[in-house]
């Protein structure tokens, strides 16, 4: 397959999995709850990265996809008493259908224009959810009392961390294949991808479907962790902002970067809580994000990598 795997890749992943598995032994329940949120944010950020980080089709409407997944499973379990085992796969499939719908405009437009259409998609579904069949969706107030899959912080932690690691590992491997390279090439120059005899349309469709798959999975599990869903919190520009910033801070189109970006930001927000209890926290958070982004748009991953390279070079020179 030519994945280019080296021994240290295995060591790093195994080490990461081991640390995450042992985490509940060392940290408090409160911290575990924070990590759970970080895990879900990481899944959403990875989903965003697969689409926007790679192909350059910036999605400002990712909650559109996440919301389809979350609402489908919420409606199925709550209103039709469908067991979760069936509801979640259905939700994922529905999200992939949603991803295909979002893909249609990408056939004709790109760049800023696509970003705006995706934003329009999010606003559209936000308003539709409240109006169309409020008996199903719960209208403006959303739904509560949904089935939760786990009880207690430790179980919730294990479920979310397993899901996150599986998603991250699969996407990381997938992006190391030639398919991943082709997706990156779309972000660089769509014409030359066509010139190389590949079909940009098929590749783009694949990126949208994969992104939707991950977003739907994350959204469905997230709603069954929270046990409630509210349109105002879900289809919120601040939520888009958090996902995008997590990806960019970590390093777009690296999969590992968004994961750590999500952790970095979630913990940053948590540590700011004692000093700034309300939404003012976003001030510091946003300023840090803005400065980092202006300084190095490729993110922390890139900064770490260049430092490592420099270190290696120095070691070689000695």
């Amino acid at each position, binding site marked *: 397959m030519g994945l280019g795997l080296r021994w240290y890749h295995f060591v790093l992943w195994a080490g990461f999995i081991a640390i995450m598995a042992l985490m509940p032994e060392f940290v408090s329940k409160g911290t575990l709850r924070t990590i759970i949120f970080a895990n879900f944010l990481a899944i959403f950020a990875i989903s965003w990265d697969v689409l926007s980080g790679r192909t*350059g089709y910036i999605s400002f409407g990712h909650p559109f996809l996440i919301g389809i997944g979350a609402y489908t499973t919420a409606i199925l379990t709550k209103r039709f008493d469908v067991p979760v085992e069936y509801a979640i796969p259905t939700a994922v499939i529905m999200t992939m259908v949603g991803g295909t719908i979002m893909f249609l*405009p990408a056939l004709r437009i790109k760049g800023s224009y696509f970003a705006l259409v995706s934003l329009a998609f999010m606003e*559209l579904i936000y*308003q539709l959810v409240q*109006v169309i069949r409020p008996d199903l969706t719960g209208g403006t107030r959303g739904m509560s009392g949904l089935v939760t899959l786990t009880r207690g912080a430790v179980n919730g932690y294990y479920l979310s961390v397993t899901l996150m690691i599986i998603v991250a590992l699969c996407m990381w491997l997938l992006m190391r294949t030639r398919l991943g390279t082709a997706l990156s090439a779309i972000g660089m120059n769509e014409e030359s991808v066509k010139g190389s005899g590949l079909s940009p349309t098929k590749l783009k469709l694949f990126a949208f479907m994969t992104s939707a798959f991950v977003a739907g999975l994350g959204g469905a599990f997230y709603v069954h962790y929270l046990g409630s869903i509210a349109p105002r919190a879900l289809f919120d520009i601040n939520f888009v902002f958090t996902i995008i910033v997590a990806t960019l801070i970590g390093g777009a189109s690296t999969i590992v970067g968004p994961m750590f970006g999500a952790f970095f930001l979630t913990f940053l927000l948590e540590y700011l809580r004692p000093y700034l209890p309300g939404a*003012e926290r976003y001030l510091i958070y946003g300023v840090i994000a803005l400065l980092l982004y*202006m300084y190095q748009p490729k993110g922390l991953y890139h900064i770490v990598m260049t430092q490592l390279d420099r270190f290696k070079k120095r070691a070689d020179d000695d």
Partner: protein
Amino acid sequence: MLEIIIQGILLSGLYALIAVGFTLIFSVGRVLNLAYGSYIMVAGYIYFYFSQLLGLPPIAGLLLAGILGSCMGLLKYNLIVKPLKGDHIAVEISTLILAVVLQSTVILFFGNSAKILLPIIPGVIHIGNATVTFNVLAATVASWLILIGLYLFIKKTHIGRAMMAVSMDAKGASISGVDIDKINMITWGISGFLGAIAGVFFASYTQLSPTMWVAPLIIAIAIVIVGGIGSIIGTLVVAHIIGFMEIISVALISPQLRGVFTMLLIILVLVIRPKGLFGREEL
């Protein structure tokens, strides 16, 4: 029926005012300023601070809001847009981050709860069975005056024509001796001023809250996309299409569907006719 027409004209005037500053930046600088909504929000708060907390006359508050908005625009251009050197996606993302930063700054100073702005010009007038506040009427008149002024400025003055030239072809304009940087600065300044003025009127039309920047931003985006870039006439026409569409859907279908048709219109126009209804060939 009369009421729908009157309300439609008034709302459309406000929307045109909101969108025109955004059109300007998008046409000349070719960047999407996603922090445009925050001019509107911040200007609302600046006006609130000066005229309601400090008790200055409304017109002074309006001018101060405009001047500070214009400063914001210049700062934004020099600190964010220029260093990113025309990377459009990067500008979009950093202005989105900036919008959230400004939102939380406002929360820090004024709190999270919504505030009611006293009308800039108090009083009402009855036309048929429709009640029109002088406030909204003033916004519409101001909007028309500003649009006509801007149109003449762009068509007749040297700077305005230079702006047009930059919007059509920045490289060509630069070869012909236009200082692109200066033109961009002027554009950002004017756009900030217009955004701020629109913000004060919009805030008095709805209410003042830290999250109020999203709705006008989306309306501005919709108007610019559907109207097409580089067209003030397009902005005006589409502001009326969207304004009337909203009023009609509120009056005849359901108030909750207010924004749905706008979103559908954006998606449809972008997919079927990406250059907009009145725009030049682009993409």
